[in-house]
């Protein structure tokens, strides 16, 4: 069973410096099964964010194919920045996908409230983004991504700008939501430690133009960030990353 499949996907961006543009992705291929938690790990500029946008349909590939064999699922997207509407409170922000789909206001408020509560923001429905900390803003962003009940959650280095303690708390919450909802998660990160704890599988990418250098299935028993299997996985991922960088 495959939820998402990328085969030999290539993408160039127009550039003023380089003739023919910059090649962001070389020939990227990978598949994701329903219910998986997959990390896409690579150095900055390797095209992992581009891959995520391609998967979401926000960009069109120049080459190769992106397929959803079971039909394109409802997708939730979380950016590196919270990307909230500063003029709207947390509830209105979380409700945006439902508003865009013309869900009746009462039902939308209900569902947005529940999504905020599940993301750990009970009682902050009417707070404005500027009144929230970085971690709480990211929680609003997460609630917004979940409110339309997606099958596939795409996250683009969502915790990169947060401090370590907040990052850990949000990571644990993400794991809980993934388990509860039976989500499929594609998680872009440049942290081997983060991917070793959160994901079941790690796709290590090469520098630009990015392609998958290693596909690492992680062992079970990674119950905490310091469990020996987690540490072991982290080492394997780091080594694969070094190899990919040198290649």
């Amino acid at each position, binding site marked *: 069973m495959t939820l998402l499949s990328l085969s030999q996907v290539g993408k160039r961006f127009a550039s003023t410096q380089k003739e023919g543009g910059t090649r962001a992705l070389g020939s990227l291929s990978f598949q994701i099964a329903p219910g998986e938690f997959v990390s896409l790990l690579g150095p900055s500029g390797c095209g992992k964010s581009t891959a995520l946008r391609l998967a979401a349909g926000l960009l069109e590939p120049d080459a190769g194919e992106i397929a959803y064999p079971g039909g394109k699922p409802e997708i939730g*997207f979380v*950016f590196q920045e919270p990307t909230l509407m500063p*003029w*709207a409170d947390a509830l209105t922000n979380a409700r*945006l996908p439902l508003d865009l789909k013309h869900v009746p206001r009462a039902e939308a408020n209900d569902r947005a409230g529940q999504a905020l509560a599940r993301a750990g923001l009970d009682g902050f429905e009417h707070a404005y983004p500027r009144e929230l900390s970085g971690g709480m803003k990211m929680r609003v962003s997460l609630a917004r991504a979940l409110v339309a009940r997606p099958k596939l959650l795409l996250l683009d280095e969502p915790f990169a700008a947060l401090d370590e303690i907040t990052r850990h708390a949000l990571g644990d919450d993400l794991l809980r939501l993934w388990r509860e909802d039976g989500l499929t998660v594609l998680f872009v990160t440049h942290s081997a430690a983060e991917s070793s704890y959160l994901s079941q599988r790690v796709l290590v990418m090469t520098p630009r133009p990015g392609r998958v250098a290693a596909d690492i299935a992680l062992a079970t028993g990674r119950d905490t960030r310091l469990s020996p299997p987690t540490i072991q996985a982290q080492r394997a991922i780091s080594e694969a990353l070094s190899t990919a960088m040198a290649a």
Partner: protein
Amino acid sequence: MNRLANIALPLAVAVLLLGTWETAVAHWQVPRYVLPAPSAIARAFLDNFVSLMAALAATLMVSLEAFLAATVLGVATAIGFSQSKLLERTLYPYAVILQVTPVVAIAPLILIWVGFEHINLALVIISTIVAFFPILAGATLGLKSADFNLIDLTRLYGASRAQVLWRIRLPTALPYLLSGMKTAGGLALIGAVVAEFVAGSGTATGLAWRIVESGNRLEIATMFAALGLLAATGVAIFAALSLLEWALLRRWHESAISSQS
């Protein structure tokens, strides 16, 4: 303490200035038709209160109509620009030409075209031309400033252009638009006054005409009173728009939030 100083300091300067003025005029016995004392100006203001207020109402009406027209036209044009790059590239130069051509130079033409029998309409059009550009510039910049990621997100949920405009672009543009409106409010008043000056005697009934008329009659005190009224009106317009800005932005925009909070 700080807020008190904000009021007390300018007030102290005013008292000092007016006191010096009054004393100097009395001491050197400056003729009334050169420089009237503040007390004489106040008396002229009270003596001509009714007619000055009627003149103010006329000028204010023209300014407000022009301001509203400029806001509606400016926002509508900016929305058009935001929806079509081609439209923007085609028309923006003309908006700039309209802006850089001195309005006193265009005013006679407009008065002739519209006709002196529709003098009020002509005044409103001239004033609208003056107030239009800051609204257009502010709204255009604001509509373009929307967060690209936020717009991408709406695309993910199949949002229409109208939804993106209404839910993302327009709210983003609001602070820029309000800033343009603050400039445009003062300009609408200036435009109305300039238009009245150009329209000249017998037709206009506003404050500018009172200034011209008082000058012709060497009633310098009345002239000062009209001038003071004009300045006060400009300040009131600015204050009203600042209040509107504060009311609309205080919950979320950095500009409306004091650094202490």
